[in-house]
């Protein structure tokens, strides 16, 4: 047996930036005045301002989480929490400022818009700049707008559900988001309506030391279906950026929601996200979570199964390269009988990257017919890379079938040898094996995401981009 196989790498640079054209930017740091300013700029009703202030108070009170991923470099006082890039929202692509259009051309929105999308809410530095909802969605009564608009136009819905899945003091970063949230998506799907084409949004961080605090609320009424896709890129900057989003999903009786994310923040971003869904009777929620970028990500999409026959799934892919730490996983809480859950996590660590799985399966007492299955696979591509698995299972009912397994492995020499004997170079062979490893999850992604993900993996594995 020869010594360990180290896979060749290149630097994946997605770096580009445009001069800051924001029209209004708050000063650095966070205090009550800043929160009031944000609320004022958005012309919010008093109740939302009060809610933000409660979040601010909770943010100050709560300690930093110490249980994993070193967050000591985040300096809350050095961050700009809000910037407004244009005067108002544009309905047509052509009316956007040229720079912003150029950014999105590079990311690839126009083609996507033409071919795939039903509607796009694109975000540029915390504001919805470009927004276009297709007429048939409007006809069906599907609401897809900025959360700021929802606060104004659908206050009953917002007041009923906002903050009920992730409360203002759930954790320090959810509290921060509650105080300074800006942008994101609000989606309401009426009873029985199926949205066949995925709804998408893109996010970017442009301003140096700028935080992204989008707030997304998705309400799928009884029997409805919607698939939401979130994918983001960010340029590389010298100071650290903070991304602290909150996503709340409510899948009412018989509804199905799928939420897909491909995250590729540049390697200076702290990505600390709280994502949680509730699934009522016979509802289904699926999180598909791809984490490729960022310096540190802490994200554990959760599903609370609150009604009988509900089903929750988390599919997670993580890629931890040099200097990266992906701390991801999933949480499923069974609070009703005849519920089921599946968590599948696949991670790859390379060049000293650390990929950790952190998960929870909790079954409350007095339940019957519970099924849960968790599989965690970790692939280490070289001796410097690391992986950790921290699964928690708390089972308080008897009629449960719960299985969990985890495996750690590396690219085997036999596999490599076989592929090389077929004429593939070492890096081609490694790439093939890695793709094979990820395939079951990649298959779950919509086509263009699968393509983008494959490309990203290829770039991570092969030589530099150029």
């Amino acid at each position, binding site marked *: 047996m020869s010594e360990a196989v180290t896979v060749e790498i290149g630097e994946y640079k997605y770096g580009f930036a445009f001069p800051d054209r924001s029209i209004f930017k708050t000063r650095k740091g966070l205090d009550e005045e800043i929160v009031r300013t944000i609320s004022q700029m958005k012309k919010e009703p008093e109740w939302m301002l009060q809610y933000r202030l409660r979040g601010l108070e909770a943010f100050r009170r709560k300690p930093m989480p110490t249980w994993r991923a070193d967050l000591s470099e985040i300096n809350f006082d050095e961050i700009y929490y809000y910037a407004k890039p244009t005067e108002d929202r544009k309905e047509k692509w052509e009316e956007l400022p040229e720079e912003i259009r150029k950014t999105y051309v590079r990311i690839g929105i126009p083609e996507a818009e033409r071919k795939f999308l039903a509607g796009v809410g694109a975000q540029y530095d915390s504001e919805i700049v470009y927004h276009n909802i297709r007429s048939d969605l409007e006809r069906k009564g599907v609401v897809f707008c900025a959360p700021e608009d929802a606060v104004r136009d659908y206050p009953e819905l917002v007041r009923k559900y906002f903050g009920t899945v*992730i*409360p203002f003091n759930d954790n320090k970063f959810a509290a921060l988001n509650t105080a300074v949230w800006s942008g994101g998506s609000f989606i309401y799907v009426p009873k029985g309506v199926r949205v066949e084409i995925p709804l998408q949004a893109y996010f970017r961080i442009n301003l140096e030391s700028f935080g992204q605090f989008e707030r997304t609320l998705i309400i799928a009424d009884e029997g409805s279906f919607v698939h939401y896709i979130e994918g983001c890129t960010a340029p590389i900057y010298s100071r650290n950026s903070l991304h602290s989003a909150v996503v709340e999903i409510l899948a009412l009786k018989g509804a199905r929601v799928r939420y897909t994310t491909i995250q590729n923040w540049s390697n200076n971003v702290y990505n600390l996200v709280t994502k949680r869904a509730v699934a009522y009777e016979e509802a289904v929620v699926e999180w598909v979570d791809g984490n490729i970028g960022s310096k540190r990500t802490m994200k554990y999409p959760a599903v609370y199964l609150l009604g009988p026959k509900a089903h929750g799934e988390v599919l997670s892919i993580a890629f931890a390269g040099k200097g990266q730490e992906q701390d991801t996983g999933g949480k499923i809480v069974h609070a009703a009988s005849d519920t089921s859950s599946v968590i599948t996590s696949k991670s790859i660590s390379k060049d000293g990257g650390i990929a950790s799985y952190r998960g929870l399966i909790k079954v409350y007492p007095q339940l019957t017919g519970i099924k849960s299955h968790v599989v965690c696979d970790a692939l280490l591509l070289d001796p410097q890379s690391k992986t950790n698995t921290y699964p928690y299972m708390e089972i308080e009912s008897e009629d449960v079938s719960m299985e969990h397994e985890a495996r750690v492995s590396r690219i085997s020499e036999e596999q490599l040898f076989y592929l090389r004997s077929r004429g593939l170079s070492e890096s081609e062979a490694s790439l093939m094996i890695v793709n094979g490893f990820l395939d079951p999850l990649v298959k779950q992604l919509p086509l263009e995401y699968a393509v983008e993900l494959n490309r990203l993996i290829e770039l991570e594995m092969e030589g530099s981009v150029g």
Partner: protein
Amino acid sequence: MKEWVAVARVEDVQKPLRVEYGSQEVVLFRLHDGIYALRDTCSHEYARLSEGEVWDDRVYCPKHGSSFDIRTGEVSGLPAVLPVERIPVKIEGGEVYVYIENW
């Protein structure tokens, strides 16, 4: 064995008030229409609701924000999923009585 136990004077109940009797832990709330009581233990991770915030007749647990309807103990917000026990209250002679186990 449950019985009525005097745990506080009416005027003492302004903000959420924690009272202990034996090993029972109860929190008293003053709402616009009277005084209500719940077990002082969040059903999520057992923090003290008496240390939480009250908004719109709901109490929000200080640990993770689980919220409960003060009058009924029902869950109004995650991450809790189980209700908190409602404790019956009666006022007699300026004293607040709660109906709880006597140990």
